[in-house]
């Protein structure tokens, strides 16, 4: 279905592109929010990614690769948004709150706070790898393709980022090796 829509959108079919936005918008937004930890900035990044997508779509040679390509645009838009926002602010922004916490959540308030703080220590490049791996469940080889880095670098970033998060939870000493989902 996506391939057919991509073919149509590539030829300038706005309705097909709108369907692509409907199909992929939620997932893109979920990823962007988790990388940027900010609702507004995530919306900006998604919008930026889709506008670039529309502009550059005629250049996409293989519609089968649309998903990976869109994720790459999104991750790059998140990087840009992160850096743009960082230039403006001096750490005065409060942590965003997005609705009530689920009462049966397995993460405690203390865990959330610790993870939020630790996650904000990560660079956007590390955040992207963590989100694509832990939240999306994307294979490491695909992450390498999306992010545009060698597989070894993906593993390295994931190792260091996950260690930081685990340490924040009090689970690891500095020398423990975290579990990484198989590629």
């Amino acid at each position, binding site marked *: 279905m996506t391939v057919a829509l991509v073919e149509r959108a590539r030829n300038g079919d706005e309705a097909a592109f709108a369907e692509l936005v409907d199909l992929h918008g939620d997932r893109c937004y979920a990823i962007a929010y988790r990388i940027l930890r900010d609702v507004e900035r995530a919306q900006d990044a998604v919008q930026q990614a889709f506008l670039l997508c529309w502009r550059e779509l005629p250049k996409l040679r293989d519609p089968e690769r649309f998903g990976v390509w869109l994720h790459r645009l999104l991750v790059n838009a998140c990087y840009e948004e992160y850096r743009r926002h960082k230039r403006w602010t001096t750490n005065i922004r409060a942590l965003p709150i997005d609705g009530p916490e689920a009462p049966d959540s397995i*993460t405690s308030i203390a865990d959330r706070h610790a993870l939020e703080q630790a996650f904000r220590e990560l660079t956007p490049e590390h955040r992207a790898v963590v989100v694509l791996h832990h939240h999306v469940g994307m294979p490491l080889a695909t992450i390498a393709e999306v992010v545009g880095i060698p597989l070894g670098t993906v593993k390295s970033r994931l190792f260091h980022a996950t260690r930081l998060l685990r340490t924040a939870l009090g689970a690891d000493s500095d020398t423990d090796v975290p579990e990484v989902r198989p590629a």
Partner: protein
Amino acid sequence: MNDMRDPNVIIGAWLDEGPTELPATTRRAITTSVRTMDQRRGFALPWDRSVSFQPLLVAAAVIVAVAGIYLLSPFGRSTSVGPPVGSPTKSEGPSINPALPLVGRIAFTRYDAEVGPLGPNIGTFTINADGEGEQQLDLPFPADGLVWSPDGSRILLQSVVRDGERARPAVADADGSNVQVLDVDGAFDLGCGAWSPDGERLLCSAADLDDPSSDGIYTIAADGTELQRLTIDPFPGVRGSASECTGQDAPADFSPDGTQFVFVRVMCGSGEDPVSGQTAEIHVGTIGEAETQAITITGFAHPQLPSARWSPDGQWILFGGTSHLLYVVRPDGTERQTIQVAAPSFDAFLYRPDWSPDGSRIVFAMHLPSAESTELYSTAADGSDLRQLTSGTSSVDFPSWGPSAP
């Protein structure tokens, strides 16, 4: 370790928390922006990129567009002037006092085959804030938009075109008399978009496709002297086989205290048609400092309708041009909010908004593709109380809301 306390499970669960549904407003903004990008390619709208410095070319394009509209559609005329349109929708943003009377005068440019001082296709008009009392200014040159001086005693003609000469701004008395073209040295085109709060200086932009070294934002004294450069445009123009894109730092407005300025940075696309790939972002700069700060993401400002206006109280910067919404953002780029205007349809396109002198209302041009009309409207600063101000057979642009006559 108990699985419920497995750190990886906790990390995964924490990452799964949070929003997962893209807001409908963002979806609409995306699809509307895409439609706008397409309109630029397929239909000669009156706000072609060349508007800034080449009004005659634009006027020609508008004649074609208007003629097409009339041949193809029963529309083209608005039904009424004055009464509120649609249902007001409240949004969080600048506060208003709806009891304030409609004061001041609004100037605008009309693109029409039957009006205009010299060029047959363009005219500059003023109306009262309630839409009544329309008058055409008798100007010796075809001119782009008009901007009132802070005290309303003079007008700035953003750029005028004279045969064989570079585009230059001009100033005139409020009734259009005593026009003085500002003779500024330089092989570039120069257009200006705003008066300083004291009325002494103008915020301008230079552009030259052949020599982009001069491209950027400038300020000059209102008599054309004391040219002072404020920005160096890092994005040069691009010539393609299908279009020419000048790129540009387009002047928008001074801050009310005169220490800062806002402008729109336009970046060209590439390939055969660099105009179709243009994007833009809004920047704020401080007089005397080289570095400027982007206050919108790329693509959130319209590259062919560059405009932004600083609120009279200095708290907000207003812009439109990407959808059926208007936007305000703090001068530091934070707290961007939409002004939900009760536009008649989602395909409405709102552009070049300007504040009333007291900041209680906003005037803007609205293009309605379904009705094939482009007219001026005003709304309270929170988006309520939408009123249509003009009604005619033409397209309008460059609204500027000035004070009442001194």
